[in-house]
């Protein structure tokens, strides 16, 4: 006796409780039972479907995108003299806001030293590019408004989804993107989640980048970010002097050993 027989017997017993004709063994009573069970099955399915309509809507469930962060522990922090486009390296990442926001720390380059005449070199972030689009920011100088290609094509999907916070000399020195009149004024530990005053990023130029998930606009990760970096140290003599004397990224030759008066 298979489980199918048990099911048939269950059907018979259920129907037989309704009336004598339906509980009989004749062909007519069998057809009537089948029709009645089919109707009952149909009603149950409708009830189930009705229940599913009361579940959270499709827009409230989101599969998300698997983002893999692959920082390179052997990435050599570059030294930028003059003007250059630098991608930077991810050195920290956090996901917050119920998985809807990701923060990335992009280490861009070294802070360089003084020129031969003693004036400090100054590094600025002139432009930010994401996936080939130059970012145009809102009035706060932090929040992306839209992106634009060299051909003038605009992409509005960055609107409110990307925020950039540049720092030009460690965590305590926030800076504006050169083209913006406003910008971040808070130290990095007041912007980056889980950072403390011990996250100093000494002598580094870096940026905190906030990305808010927006699948319809294809904002599902950091993308390819590039910074246009400008260093006021650009004369060959200054660059060579800095490179020769710096003990962190240069040759570490004492300044007294370098004849720089000529």
């Amino acid at each position, binding site marked *: 006796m298979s489980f199918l027989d048990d099911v048939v017997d269950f059907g018979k017993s259920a129907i037989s409780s309704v009336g004598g004709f339906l509980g009989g063994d004749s062909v007519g009573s069998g057809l009537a039972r089948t029709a009645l069970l089919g109707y009952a099955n149909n009603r149950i399915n409708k009830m189930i479907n009705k229940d599913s309509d009361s579940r*959270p809507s499709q827009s*409230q*469930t*989101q*599969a*998300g*995108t*698997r*983002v*893999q*962060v*692959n*920082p*390179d*522990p*052997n*990435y*050599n*922090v570059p*030294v930028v003299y003059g003007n250059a486009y630098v991608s930077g*390296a*991810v*050195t*920290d*990442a956090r*996901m917050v806001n*119920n*998985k*809807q926001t*990701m923060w990335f*720390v992009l*280490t861009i380059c*070294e802070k360089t030293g003084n020129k031969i005449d003693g004036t400090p070199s100054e590094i600025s972030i002139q432009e930010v590019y994401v996936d080939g689009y130059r970012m145009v920011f809102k009035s706060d100088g932090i929040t992306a408004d839209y992106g634009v290609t060299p051909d003038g094509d605009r992409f509005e999907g960055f609107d409110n989804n990307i925020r950039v916070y540049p720092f030009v000399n460690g*965590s305590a020195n926030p800076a504006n993107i050169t083209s913006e009149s406003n910008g971040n004024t808070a130290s990095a530990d007041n912007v980056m989640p889980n950072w*403390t005053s*011990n*996250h*100093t*990023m*000494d*002598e580094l130029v870096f940026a905190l980048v906030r990305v808010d*998930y927006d*699948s319809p606009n294809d904002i*599902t*990760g950091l993308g390819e970010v590039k910074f246009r970096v400008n260093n006021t140290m650009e004369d060959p003599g200054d660059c060579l002097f800095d*490179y*020769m004397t710096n*003990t*962190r*990224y*240069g*040759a*570490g*030759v*004492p300044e007294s*050993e370098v004849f720089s008066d000529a």
Partner: protein
Amino acid sequence: MIDLSSYNGIRSAVFVRLQIDEYRTTSGGSFTQEVLAFSDHFQDLIYEGDTYQTVGTLMGIAATSSELRSSSDTVTVSLSGVPNSSIKEIIHSRIKGSTIEIYRGYFDPQTRTQIGDITGRFKGFVNNYSLDEDYNIDSRTASNTITLQCASNIDVLSRKTSGRRTNPESEKRFFPSDVSMDRVVNLAGTTYNFGRKG
């Protein structure tokens, strides 16, 4: 250029100026800067404020090649006769990385007067050093020879410091209290389910 054509003979002497920035005589002592100046000249000589003490044949300098342009040549300087009592100064001081300058002077062997100026021969850094003990069984005493292997500034330039890398060890080498790079290694390969709801 010194004109030596009018001399029947000349004698040259080599002067070594070793500047040790982290010099101390005991293991727990504080570091001070010390300049050691010595030469194989027959008498002490003052040059640019430093008195070069004569150590005669106890000093040896390996032959070097002279080239018209700056080259990354290396020089080995040995100093023999270092008494055991002075060994602790060598061990506790940080001789590696000290700057070393080697000059050459010419003298008239008859009048013992200096001919021309003292000229530079080598500028560089102590790359490594070694100590060799010479034990005298009869007298049961020992003296030591310290050998300094020196790299020229040109050699140092070609082997510039590797710079900072984005990992915690490298960051803390330059800034010990900074923890910004501490998560780099753990982040490698980490996957975030960015944007998932429900």
